[in-house]
């Protein structure tokens, strides 16, 4: 009986590892493919390369890929968007949660509806163009990316503020604190874990964004990393080894972040769908 249990346990462990191959084999193929020469890489097998063209492939890819511009663009766009998003979603959620009126109720419902309805990108583009935001495509992209993440951020912050008793506001007001001071020095710091969650979700969503950026950023000068992969793939589609190397290097930043902050990333990214 005891032995049977042990055997079953080890079978479970073995089965778990076997299952993970479904994810690992495609990644292994990507990795090994990026070391092969062009002809071997287009045979797409799992065999080890006969010649290891590591340095050669990666230097060629870097020369062709325009990666440094894209990396810079990705950083600028993502960081700016996340900072703006945190600033406006936290303040908006605070006001919406604390002031109960017909207007705030309606506004909150409209924002929550944004969680369900897919964004209408053509009209977003239209308005951005009308306001001359598209003259500097990065600004149009940043503002629209912020808007795309706004409903979820407000929703999560709203839940967070609910947990902070209103008495804290009142006693702060009695001590002569202004609304701004109350928010920046007392309420906002209390929600550090919530802010961390939103930073993780929006960082991943914006960094990996393809839907919106494809509409707004259409020249190599403004490409983000995600867009350069797409562009590289369409340009060098006969050199799979270089394409693979490009995918690896472009994905490296999120992979590094995932390995270092794995626990936080997993719980952060899913918490939007758990609390709902």
């Amino acid at each position, binding site marked *: 009986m005891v032995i049977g249990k042990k055997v079953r346990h080890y079978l479970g462990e073995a089965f778990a590892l076997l299952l993970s191959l479904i994810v690992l084999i495609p990644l292994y193929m990507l990795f090994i493919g990026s070391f092969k020469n062009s002809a071997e890489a287009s045979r797409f097998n799992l065999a080890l390369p006969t010649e290891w063209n590591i340095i050669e492939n990666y230097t060629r890819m870097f020369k062709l890929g325009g990666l440094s511009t894209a990396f810079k663009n990705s950083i600028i766009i993502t960081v700016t968007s996340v900072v703006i998003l945190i600033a406006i979603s936290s303040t*908006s959620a605070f006001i919406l949660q604390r002031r109960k009126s017909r207007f705030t109720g309606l506004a909150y419902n409209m924002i929550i509806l944004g969680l369900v309805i897919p964004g209408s990108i053509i009209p977003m583009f*239209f*308005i951005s163009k009308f306001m001359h935001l598209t003259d500097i495509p990065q600004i149009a992209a940043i503002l629209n990316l*912020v808007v795309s993440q706004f409903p979820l951020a407000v929703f999560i912050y709203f839940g967070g503020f609910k947990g902070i008793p209103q008495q804290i506001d009142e006693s702060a007001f009695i001590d002569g604190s202004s609304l701004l001071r109350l928010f920046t020095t007392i309420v906002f710091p209390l929600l550090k874990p919530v802010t961390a969650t939103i930073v993780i979700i929006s960082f991943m969503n914006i960094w990996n964004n393809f839907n919106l950026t494809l509409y707004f950023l259409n020249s190599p000068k403004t490409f983000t990393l995600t867009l350069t992969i797409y562009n590289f793939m369409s340009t060098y589609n006969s050199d799979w080894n270089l394409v693979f190397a490009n995918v690896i290097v472009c994905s490296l930043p999120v992979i590094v972040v995932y390995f270092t902050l794995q626990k936080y990333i997993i719980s952060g990214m899913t918490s939007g769908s758990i609390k709902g």
Partner: protein
Amino acid sequence: MPGLLLYFILGILPNFIGLGLSFVNTNNFNIKNMTYAGLQNFINILTNPTINIAISNSFIFAGLTTFFKVGTGLVLAIFLNQELKTRNFVRAVFFFPAILNVVAVGIVFSSLMHPLGVINNFLGAIGLETLAQDWLTNPKIAIFSVSVIEIWMWSGFTMVILLAGLQSISKDYYEAASIDGATTFDKFLHVTFPLIMPYFNNALVVNIIGGLSSFGLIYATTQGGPGNATEVFGTFVFKSFGSGRYGEGSAANLLLSIIVLIIVIPTYKYIAGKEVEL
């Protein structure tokens, strides 16, 4: 408050402008050149054979991927809820695809599903050459192939949502059920499943919305092709945008929004009505 203003201008206003754009003729973003088109844009898209393909593909894609993502996610979550040494490792591995961008995943699978790729090689190696397919270039099966990619990418994510539900259940319930002589299956049906219902509901709804409005993965792997075989709403809208048919694109997007609302809200409410209060 400036936040709300930004959201109203770029978040909510577009929906109304979209409604407006759906009823005008325009091929540039110049208000002076617009003329009222009535229902013409809707007639155009609804009589366009491509939209029929897009609608049915969106439903196939959303239905299949939601079913398998939630199904696989649930099985994996239950399996990994046991005390296994490898649990954290396997969980991290399965979640991994969710952090990659759709283009990267699309490229990996374009090569795996290539006629000479690993999948066909594998089938050949185990003597099932007859099952080898042109996964992404055969119009009959391409939409199913891209569904498989989507399932591969997001099952781990769904698993984590459901795992959080499983871990929220107190062991006492299972002990009480055992005393009452419940079998493992009884326990699942009468204890586990009702208690993870809210998590199940969220997982379901998130995946339905994601499936119906999918764009990136399909665009990155097939661009809606071969021909129009994998056209969905997202690719249809993007192509309308690319060719300057803004009115038609907006009309298609509006149609999608309505479909999403009609499906998602009743589903969510129906399941939420079945949740048990503790």
